């Protein structure tokens, strides 16, 4: 074996080692890369471009602030939003009523202006939907809301939206900002706060268990929730309790939200662990029900985690073997080289 032949396995070994080092953060889940990427944000900037508020803010006794309307079918109401331009230049706005959609990740957002509205957004009308507001000026944007006949009782959610293009990139892309004030319409009738949990699922990811469960609002009231996952051992003792996130958010009637929790403190030593989700649903901040999931048997952790450990140890052993082989070859090569030198001289 010559020196070139020795160098090649060494190069391979180094490459394998490097690949193992690079692969470890990927294999062991996203939290390592997340930690690297997390950089502190700078201090908040006080600069604001524009903002909105209900016209009668602080002047009514409506519960939960504005806009909360208790209306019957065919009722009609007029209210208004104030839009302030804080900037040094005029801004062109669009105003519209919109349905509220559940956003991925637990938030809510108004539907787009071009969407076909089916709920409160369709009940609202803005007489002046486009206006330009001068620098440091404010305007009052009135809107009307008419409840159609035959609507089901309960709470219905919408929003009054102010939208403006606030920037353009060098390639012509547009940055748009929207502010949306929630409009909650309560129709008289039997209030039915209720929800349903989907099946509790778990994904063993390397050294942690990631739980997921959906909460569906099956009633007619706007819901909030508080939930957790409890892990128990074979004896029924609680060994871990994790809050479900996102921890704050609305679930609109017929809306669905995915709740998750992660258990990564310790790997269970057997497959005898079980998990169960408990979610308390709230309407107007008051608990109205407790939902529980099925009892989920946790999979043995050995499958994924131990395989990774075995592969990593195998790579290490291979690396050491190659190093030993290289050292042995070098020792053998030295006397033969001396012999060759002797021959030529």
């Amino acid at each position, binding site marked *: 074996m010559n020196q070139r032949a020795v160098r090649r396995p060494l190069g391979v070994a180094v490459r394998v080692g490097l690949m193992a080092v690079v692969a470890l953060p990927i294999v062991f889940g996203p939290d390592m890369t*997340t930690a690297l*990427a*997390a*950089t502190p*944000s*700078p*201090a*908040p*900037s*006080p*600069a*604001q*471009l*524009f*903002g*909105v*508020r*209900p016209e009668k*803010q*602080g002047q009514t006794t409506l519960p*939960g*602030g*504005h806009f909360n309307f208790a209306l019957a079918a065919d009722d009609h109401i007029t209210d208004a939003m*104030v839009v*302030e331009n*804080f900037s040094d230049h005029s801004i062109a706005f669009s105003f519209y009523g919109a349905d*509220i*959609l559940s*956003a*991925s*990740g*637990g*938030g*809510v*957002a*108004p539907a*787009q202006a071009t969407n076909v509205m089916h709920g409160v957004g369709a009940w609202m009308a803005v007489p002046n939907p486009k206006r330009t507001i001068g620098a440091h000026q404010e305007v009052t944007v009135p809107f009307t809301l008419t409840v159609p006949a035959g609507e089901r009782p309960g709470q219905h959610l919408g929003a009054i939206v102010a939208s403006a293009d*606030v*920037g*353009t*990139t*060098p*390639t*012509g*892309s*547009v*940055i*748009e*900002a*929207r*502010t*949306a*004030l*929630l409009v909650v319409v309560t129709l008289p009738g039997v209030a039915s706060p209720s929800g349903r949990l989907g099946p509790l699922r778990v994904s063993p990811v390397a050294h942690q268990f990631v739980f997921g469960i959906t909460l569906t609002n099956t009633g007619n009231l706007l819901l909030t929730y508080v939930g957790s996952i409890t892990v128990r051992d074979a004896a029924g003792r609680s060994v871990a309790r994790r809050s479900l*996130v*996102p*921890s*704050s*958010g609305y679930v609109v009637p017929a809306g669905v939200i995915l709740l998750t929790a992660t258990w990564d403190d310790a790997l269970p030593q057997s497959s005898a662990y079980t998990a169960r989700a408990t979610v308390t649903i709230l309407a107007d*901040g008051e608990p109205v029900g407790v939902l529980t999931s099925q009892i989920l048997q946790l999979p043995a952790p050995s499958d994924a985690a131990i395989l990774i450990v075995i592969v990593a140890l195998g790579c290490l052993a291979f690396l050491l073997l190659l190093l030993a082989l290289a050292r042995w070859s070098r020792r053998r090569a030295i006397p033969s080289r001396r012999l060759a030198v002797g021959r030529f001289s």
Partner: protein
Amino acid sequence: MLFTPHRSRRTGRLAVAITIGSSALLLGLSPASAATAGSTQLITGSTPAGILSVTAPGTLALPSLVPASSTAATDLGSLTWTDTLNNATASSVTLAATDLYFAAGIGSYIPFTHFTFTVDQAPVAGPLNSGTVTAGAASQTLTGADTTPGTTYSSPITLANGNTLADGTWTQAANKITVGVPAATILSTVFSSTIQYTITG
């Protein structure tokens, strides 16, 4: 009741104070003149109306869009929002986008489903804020039915949620976007999109 000289002096002082105070009120003395007289200064203040606002970064420069590769994660700029409505309503900050579009047809636009956002997990709160704001999931890819490419917005993703007690100003400065560029994307073309930030509360 035992009437002592000490109690008598205190009652006398109280009577004098009441007389001086009522005279000041009757004569319409200003707080400033009261202060120069060494008495209590009356401080008044008023608060402006609350506000709901979102200040989106005005610019975004994507790196070169190279077919069959993903761009580097690109800063979206500093996003700031304010909720001082104090109305016991939870708030959400969300993002949606349209395709990077040049024209209809395969290769002429990059669907928003190829956009992945890295969400700043540590929103910075103003020093006098109240309530709690939680960042959305660290990595989110846009979804939605792209019925009219270039015009249709994606479904919204959550950048942050504020609870019902959240009042104040928050900033997310480390949000990033990565764009996966399909291999069939036509070359030497300028694509444009709309990035939309919304605060709902």
